[in-house]
C-alpha cells in the first residue's frame, strides 16, 4: 500500500500523468549490465544533488521575494543607489558563500563523473567478438569463429550471452550512426573511416531495445536493434544453429519461391547461405523467419506484414532502399512460403 502511494507520488512529482509510468520500458533507468548500473548510480547522485540545489535556489528566491515585497510596503519605492556599506558587505559574503558551496558541489560531481568514467571504460577481457556494421537503415551483425566457415552473418538482432563480456567492433557503411542499448551501456558512434569498439557485459537475460541515436537520414526513426541476452548455453545453441545454412525448401511452393528469390529481384541484394543467393547489399536472410521484426523494427514479422512489406516497402518505411516486389499473386505466395522456411 505504501509502495503504491510512493509510486503515485513519483508519478505526480514527475508530471507523468495517471499511472502512465507503469508500462514504460524504463531504458537507462532499468540497467541490465554493470556498466548501465554504474551510469544509473551516477545518475541518481547527480539527480539528488540537482534536486537539492534547485530547491535551495527556489527557496532563496521565494524568501527574497517575500522580504523585498515587505520592504516595498514599509519603505516605499525611492531607489537605493548607495546602500549601507556594512550591509552590502554582508550580502556579498553570502553570495560568496553560495558560490563556494557551488564550487564544492561541482568538484564533487566532477570527481564522481571522472572516476565513474574510468571504471566504465576499463576494458575487461572479452572472450567473444562480434562485429556490427551500421547501414542506412539497418544493422549488419557478424560473429567470427575459429575458421572462415564459422562466420555467422545476420541482421537487426544481436544475440549475447549473459555474464560473458563481448567485444563489439563497430563500423559504418555509409553515414554516421550511433549504437544505443540503454539497458546495457551508453552510446558509441559508428563513423565511416573510424573503427571503434564497445565491450558489452549483459548480466540479466532478456530482450532489450537498441536503436540508432545519431540522425542518419530519412529512416533514422526505424533503425532498431533487438538485443537478446540468453544464458550462455542457450546462446551457444543459437550460435550453432545460426552457423547452419538455410534448410532446403521442402514443399513445391517453397521450392518455386527459392527459385524466384535467387533469380528475381531479392537475390540482387539479399543473401541466403545454402542457396544460390549470395549478395550482401541488404540484410542476410538465412534465418530470417526466426527474427521478430521486419525492416529493423518497422513491423512485427508475420506473414501478413511480410506480404505488405514486400508489395510496398516505401509505404511502411518511406525512403528505405528496398524496391517494391512486383510479382504475380501466385509467385508472391511461393516467395512468402519460401521465406517462411528460413528458420
Amino acid at each position, binding site marked *: 500500500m505504501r509502495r503504491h502511494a510512493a509510486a503515485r507520488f513519483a508519478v505526480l512529482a514527475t508530471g507523468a500523468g495517471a499511472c502512465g509510468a507503469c508500462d514504460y520500458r524504463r531504458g*537507462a533507468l532499468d540497467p541490465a549490465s554493470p556498466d548501465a548500473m554504474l551510469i544509473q548510480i551516477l545518475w541518481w547522485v547527480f539527480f539528488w544533488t540537482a534536486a537539492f540545489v534547485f530547491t535551495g535556489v527556489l527557496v532563496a528566491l521565494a524568501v*527574497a521575494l517575500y522580504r523585498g515585497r515587505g520592504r516595498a510596503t514599509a519603505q516605499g519605492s525611492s531607489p537605493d543607489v548607495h546602500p549601507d556599506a556594512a550591509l*552590502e558587505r554582508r550580502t556579498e559574503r553570502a553570495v560568496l558563500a553560495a558560490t563556494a558551496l557551488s564550487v564544492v558541489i561541482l568538484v564533487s560531481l566532477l570527481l564522481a563523473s571522472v572516476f565513474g568514467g574510468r571504471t566504465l571504460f576499463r576494458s575487461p577481457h572479452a572472450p567473444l567478438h562480434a562485429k556490427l556494421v551500421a547501414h542506412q537503415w539497418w544493422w549488419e551483425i557478424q560473429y567470427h569463429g575459429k575458421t572462415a566457415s564459422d562466420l555467422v552473418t545476420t541482421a537487426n538482432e544481436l544475440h549475447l550471452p549473459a555474464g560473458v563480456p563481448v567485444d563489439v567492433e563497430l563500423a559504418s557503411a555509409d553515414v554516421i550512426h550511433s549504437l544505443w542499448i540503454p539497458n546495457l551501456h551508453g552510446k558509441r558512434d559508428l*563513423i565511416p573511416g573510424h573503427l571503434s569498439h564497445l565491450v558489452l557485459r549483459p548480466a540479466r537475460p532478456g530482450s532489450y531495445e537498441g536503436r540508432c*541515436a545519431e*540522425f542518419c537520414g530519412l529512416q533514422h526513426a526505424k533503425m532498431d536493434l533487438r538485443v537478446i541476452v540468453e544464458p550462455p548455453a542457450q546462446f551457444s545453441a543459437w550460435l550453432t544453429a545460426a552457423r547452419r545454412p538455410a534448410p532446403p525448401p521442402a514443399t513445391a511452393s517453397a521450392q518455386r519461391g527459392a527459385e524466384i528469390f535467387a533469380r528475381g529481384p531479392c537475390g540482387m541484394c539479399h543473401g541466403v547461405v545454402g542457396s544460390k543467393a549470395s549478395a550482401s547489399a541488404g540484410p542476410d536472410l538465412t534465418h530470417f523467419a526466426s527474427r521478430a521484426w521486419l525492416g529493423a523494427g518497422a513491423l512485427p514479422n508475420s506473414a501478413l506484414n511480410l506480404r505488405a512489406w514486400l508489395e510496398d516497402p516505401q509505404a511502411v518505411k518511406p525512403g528505405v532502399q528496398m524496391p517494391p516486389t512486383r510479382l504475380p499473386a501466385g509467385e508472391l505466395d511461393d516467395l512468402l512460403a519460401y521465406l517462411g522456411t528460413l528458420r
Partner: protein
Amino acid sequence: MTTASERTQNDAREDARLRDELAFTWQLARGLRGWFSETNSQVIARRMLVTAFVFFALGGVEALLMRLQLMQPANHLMGPDRYDQLFTTHGTTMMFLFAVPVMQAAGIYLVPLMIGTRSVAFPRLNAYAYYTYLFGGLLLYVSLFTNTGPDTGWFSYTPLSNSQFAPGKRVDVWSQVVTFTELSALATATNLIVTILKLRAPGMALSRMPLFVWAELVTSFMVVFAMPAVMLASMYLAMDRLVGTHFFNSAAGGDPLLWQHLFWFFGHPEVYIIFLPALGMVSSIVVTFSRRAIVGYLPMVLSLVTTAFMGFGLWVHHMFATGLPQIGQSFFTAASMMIAIPSGVQIFCWIATLWRGKIELRTPLLYVLGFVAIFVLGGLSGVMVASVPLDLQVHDTYFVVAHLHYVLIGGAVFPLLGGVHYWFPKLGGRLLDERLGRVSFALAFVGFNLVFFPMHLLGLHGMPRRVYTYRADAGFGTLNLVATLGVFVLGAGLLVILVNVLRSLARGPVASNDPWRSATLEWSLSSPPPAYGYVHLPCVTGRYPLWEGGIAGVVRDMDPRQRQVLVTSALDAAPDHVYPLPGPSLWPFLAALASGVTIVILLFTPWAVPIGTVLGTICLCGWFWPRAPHEPLLAEQP
C-alpha cells in the same frame, strides 16, 4: 545683466532651435527609395526586431507541426521527408534567424540610447547587416516552401550532408544561409563593439556601464571569435559539394569529425552568444524593480567575461560519443561543469539584490522569476550532460531536447519577453496592459514546463531525437501527448503577448519618458525617442544616472547641422573628438543585394565567386565614393 528666468527662457529657446535643427539633420529618408536607403540605427533595429519575431513565429509553427506529428505513436500527419525539413528549418531558424539576430537587434536599439549617443558607430554597415540577414532568412523559407528545405539537421553532420547522401540543393541552401546570416552577425558585432567602446557618454567609464551594455559587448566579442569557425565550416561543406574538395570525406583523406569540431567550436559558444544578452536584460529588470543598485556589479561583469572565455573550451561535450581519448574528455567535462560557476554567481547576485530590494512585482520581473526557475533547472541538467558517463546515455535523446530548451527558452526567451514588456514603452511609445502581461506569463510558464519537462523522462526511457515517429509498444505515447498539449498552452501565452502589443499600439495609454522610474539613460528620452536621440549628449557620473539626481551635465557646442557623434576614450570615456556619421544611402542595400545574388548563384556554380567579386566591387565603390566636404544643411538662421 540677465535675470535667472530670462536665462532659463533663453535656454529653452536655444533647445527648441536645436531640436528643430537636429530633427532636420536626422530626418528619416522618405519614399520607397528612402525606405531602402534609411540607415538610422533605431529604424534598422526596429525592422530587425520585427523580422526576428516573424522568424520566431515561423519557427514556432514548425515546432507545433512537429509536436502534432509526435502527439501519438505511428502518426501519419507527415512523412519523414517533411519532418526532417521541419526540424532542420526549426533549428536553423531559431538559432540563426531568431535568437542571435533578436539579441543583436536589442543591442542596436538600446545600446546607443543607454550609453548616451545618437547612433551606432557604422550606420551603413548596420543597414547592410540587416539586409544580408533578411535575404538569408528569405532564402531558407523560399526553399522550405518549394519543398527543397534543408533536411540534414541544423548541425548538418557530414557525410550525411555530402553530395553522395544529400543530392540536390537542400544542403547547399543550408550552408549558404549559415554563411550569410553569420556574415550579418559579424558585421553587427563589430558595430556594437566599436559603438560601446568609443561612443559612450563622457564620464561613462567601463565601470559605470549598464550591465546590459556589458553583456552586449562581451557577446559581440564572442561572435567575432565563434562565427568565423562556422562560416569556414559551411564554406568547406559548400566546396566539398560544389567543386569536389574532400575536407570531410574519409575515403579521400578528409575526416567527418573535422566538421564536428569546427561546427561545435562555434555551436557551443553560440549558446552563450544567445543567452548573455538575455542576462543583461535580467540585470536591468532586477535593478529597476528591486529599486536598488545591483549587488556585486564587479562579480557580475567578471562572470560575463569568464563565461565568454570558458564558452570556447567545452565544445567537445557534444562529441563524447565519438570515442575521443579519456584524458581529453575529462578536461572538457571539467570545463563544462565549471562554467556553471559564473552563471551561479549571477543568479546569486540577482537573488541577493531582490533580497535587499524593495520589490515591485510587475510583468517584466515575473518573467525574470520564471527565468530563474527554468534556467537553473536547465543549468543543472547541463551539469548532467557534462559528465561523460551520463552524457553517453542521454546524448541525442529527448533529455537533451529538454535540456537545451530549458537553457535557451528559459535562459534567453523568458528574459527577452520580460525585456519586451520592460522596454516596450521605449519602442512603441505606449504602455502594455499589466493584466494581459500577467496572463501571458502564467500561460507561457505553465505551458513551457508541460511541453519540455516530460521530455527529460522520454530521453531516459529511450526516445532518441530527430525521429519522425515511434512505435506504440515503445511506451512513449503518454508523455508525448502531454508535451503536445502543453504546446497549446505555451502558444496561447505567446499569442496573448502579441494581442497585448497590438492592442497597446492601437489604443494603449501613452508612455511618459520613464514609466518604471528606472536608472539608466534611455529613460531620460521621450518614448519613443526622436531619430537623433539626445538633444544634448549627456555626461555621466555614476552607474545609475537617473537615480543620482538626473543627468549630471551635457555636452554643448556640437554642430546640429551635421550627424555628429562624440568619440570618447575606451576606458574612461573622456571626450576625444567629434565624428560625423554618413547619412542615408542606397548602397548598403545594393551591396546586400549583390551578396544575396552571389550566394544564390553559388548554389549552382562556383562562377558565382568572380561574378560576386565584380558586383561587390561596384557596390563598395559606390558606398565609399568620396563626397565633397560637408556643406551645412541649413542656411544660417537670422
